[in-house]
């Protein structure tokens, strides 16, 4: 917990992180010159990457290109050796821990679906719901009608209304993935980081997921990391290609596909 937040707390007493967010330049996420090394191996190498407000961005790249590490840095799981990482112009993500980054408005879906298996679908969504998550308030918390409506709305979006009372552990793989996206929506984040949403999905499930992600564009910025090129092609407007820990190319799917460097390292395989 560093000086930035405290300094800012002092200037804006009583404001939450979400209220401090300054996005007047229409850029939501700034990742600049980030380097991460694990035992000498550079997982990220001077990576710079920007995400605009409301945009849907796909990130592709071969295995070991640093896609997941990049998400780890943004969500506070991994600390970079150097570089900057800002949410809006004011919030320095490198000074916050995971819960505070989540509260600031960044939600993350993991590669392996991790839902709370013992809890029902409803309870999973309830736990993820945006709100004050301090201990005492959580102990006394009760669902308002409005919040119930919101949960019901999300259940509709992810198509799990009929599963509402089932334990999340009993859902199919695809349903768990959607539940996780639903949990992200309950957090109501400005930025959603979605790691491999269609891994292990059937074709129909994939189509549904594509619809789901496209419907989020505009209201939320979405960063999708995905291996499946057909899927990326079906949703992407802008694509970023990572290679050996830095950005190799960026642009529309067509531009990227025709970039000879990209063809060489990735698409040409």
């Amino acid at each position: 917990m560093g000086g930035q937040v405290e300094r800012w707390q002092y200037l804006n007493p009583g404001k939450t992180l979400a209220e401090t967010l300054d996005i007047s330049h229409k850029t939501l996420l700034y990742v600049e010159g980030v380097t991460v090394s694990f035992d000498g191996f550079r997982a990220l190498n001077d990576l710079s990457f920007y995400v605009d407000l409301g945009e849907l961005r796909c990130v592709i790249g071969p295995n070991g290109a640093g896609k997941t590490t990049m998400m780890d840095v943004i969500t506070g799981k991994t600390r970079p050796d150097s570089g900057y990482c800002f949410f809006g112009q004011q919030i320095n993500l490198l000074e916050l821990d995971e819960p505070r980054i989540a509260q600031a408005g960044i939600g993350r879906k993991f590669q392996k679906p991790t839902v709370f298996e013992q809890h029902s679908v409803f309870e999973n969504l309830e736990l993820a719901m945006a709100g004050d998550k301090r201990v005492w308030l959580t102990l006394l918390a009760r669902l308002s009608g409005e919040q119930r409506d919101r949960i019901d709305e999300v259940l509709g979006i992810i198509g799990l209304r009929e599963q509402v009372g089932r334990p999340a552990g009993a859902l199919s793989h695809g349903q768990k993935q959607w539940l996780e996206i639903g949990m992200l929506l309950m957090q109501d984040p400005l930025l959603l980081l979605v790691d491999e949403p269609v891994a292990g999905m059937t074709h129909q499930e994939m189509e549904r997921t594509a619809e789901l992600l496209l419907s989020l564009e505009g209201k939320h910025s979405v960063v999708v990391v995905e291996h499946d090129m057909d899927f990326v092609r079906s949703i992407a407007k802008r694509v970023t290609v990572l290679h050996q820990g830095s950005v190799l190319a960026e642009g529309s799917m067509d531009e990227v596909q025709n970039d000879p460097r990209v063809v060489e390292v990735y698409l040409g395989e």
Partner: protein
Amino acid sequence: MGLVRALRGDTGGQVMLAVLLVVAVVVPMLNLGVPESSPWHVSTYTVTLLGKYLTYALLAVAVDLVWGYLGILSLGHGAFFALGGYAMGMYMMRQIGDRGVYGDPVLPDFMVFLNWKELPWFWQGFDLFWFAALMAILVPGVLAFVFGYLAFRSRVTGVYLSIITQALTFALMLAFFRNEMGFGGNNGLTDFKDLLGFDLQAQSTRAGLFVASALALALGYLACRYIVTSRLGRVAVAIRDAESRTRFIGYRVDRVKVAIFTFSAMLAGVAGALYVPQVGIINPGEFSPLNSIELVIWVAVGGRATLYGAVVGALLVNYGKSSFTGIFPEAWLFALGGLFVLVTLFLPRGIAGLLAWRRAV
């Protein structure tokens, strides 16, 4: 409102509380109201034994709250129990006054024996019941808070945390064994005379302590149920099952853990404070790491993450211990170890799991 929610759907808990209520009324009646010659008479020895079991049950509920619902396997809860016990023991030592062997009006016997001239600062205030009662809760609470703050903030989990809790209770045991600590060293605190002016040897005082233990167990149980049925309880289970996921949806996992761990330690302190006047002694042996492991076995036998299972487990295992050690004292630890292995292999959800399964069939 909270009470209704706490017990809704908790058949095991409802039955347990109903039985507890009946026992809390009937046992003292059979002890005080029925003449000794009658076959219905319950001896004072039995009343005290049952009262002791009830304090164990409360301790087991406290352990189940953190182990069953939060996934923290504390192998040091005996320390919080013992600290609560020492606080109450200190009050009762001060109550002895000049009736001790050396007749010193202020200093307890062991201090006179050590040639101490005045009461150490940390014994001040323990002549007041309310202060001692407060300390019986606060001292375990503060220790758990500091310990939990350091451990959970550094994200120490799993077996490492369990080992540190063992070390905690072991360190306290060694410290309390020392005479210079000022808690009676090896012998601990004993020879209590009275509590709040009631003679501890009196039948009615014993019955009163029994009822107080039953009441504490009932209230502690309800408080724990209130927590586990709240959203905080669901967050706790979420932490148990997928800790880092919980962090990524915005919960301060370390704070949730510290809060529930501290509450649990306070409950253990209450149990200890009720235990000591009934057994009449508290010594450093209560800090023994073995005690803390034993009480985890009570919870495992009863059924983890059910709360009422912890009560059932504590009562059954201790009843078994009392019977078994009467017949075959050396073999008890082997029996306990065997029981743990059997339960882990064949009854992973304990007796409560067996009951739930029977109901489902």
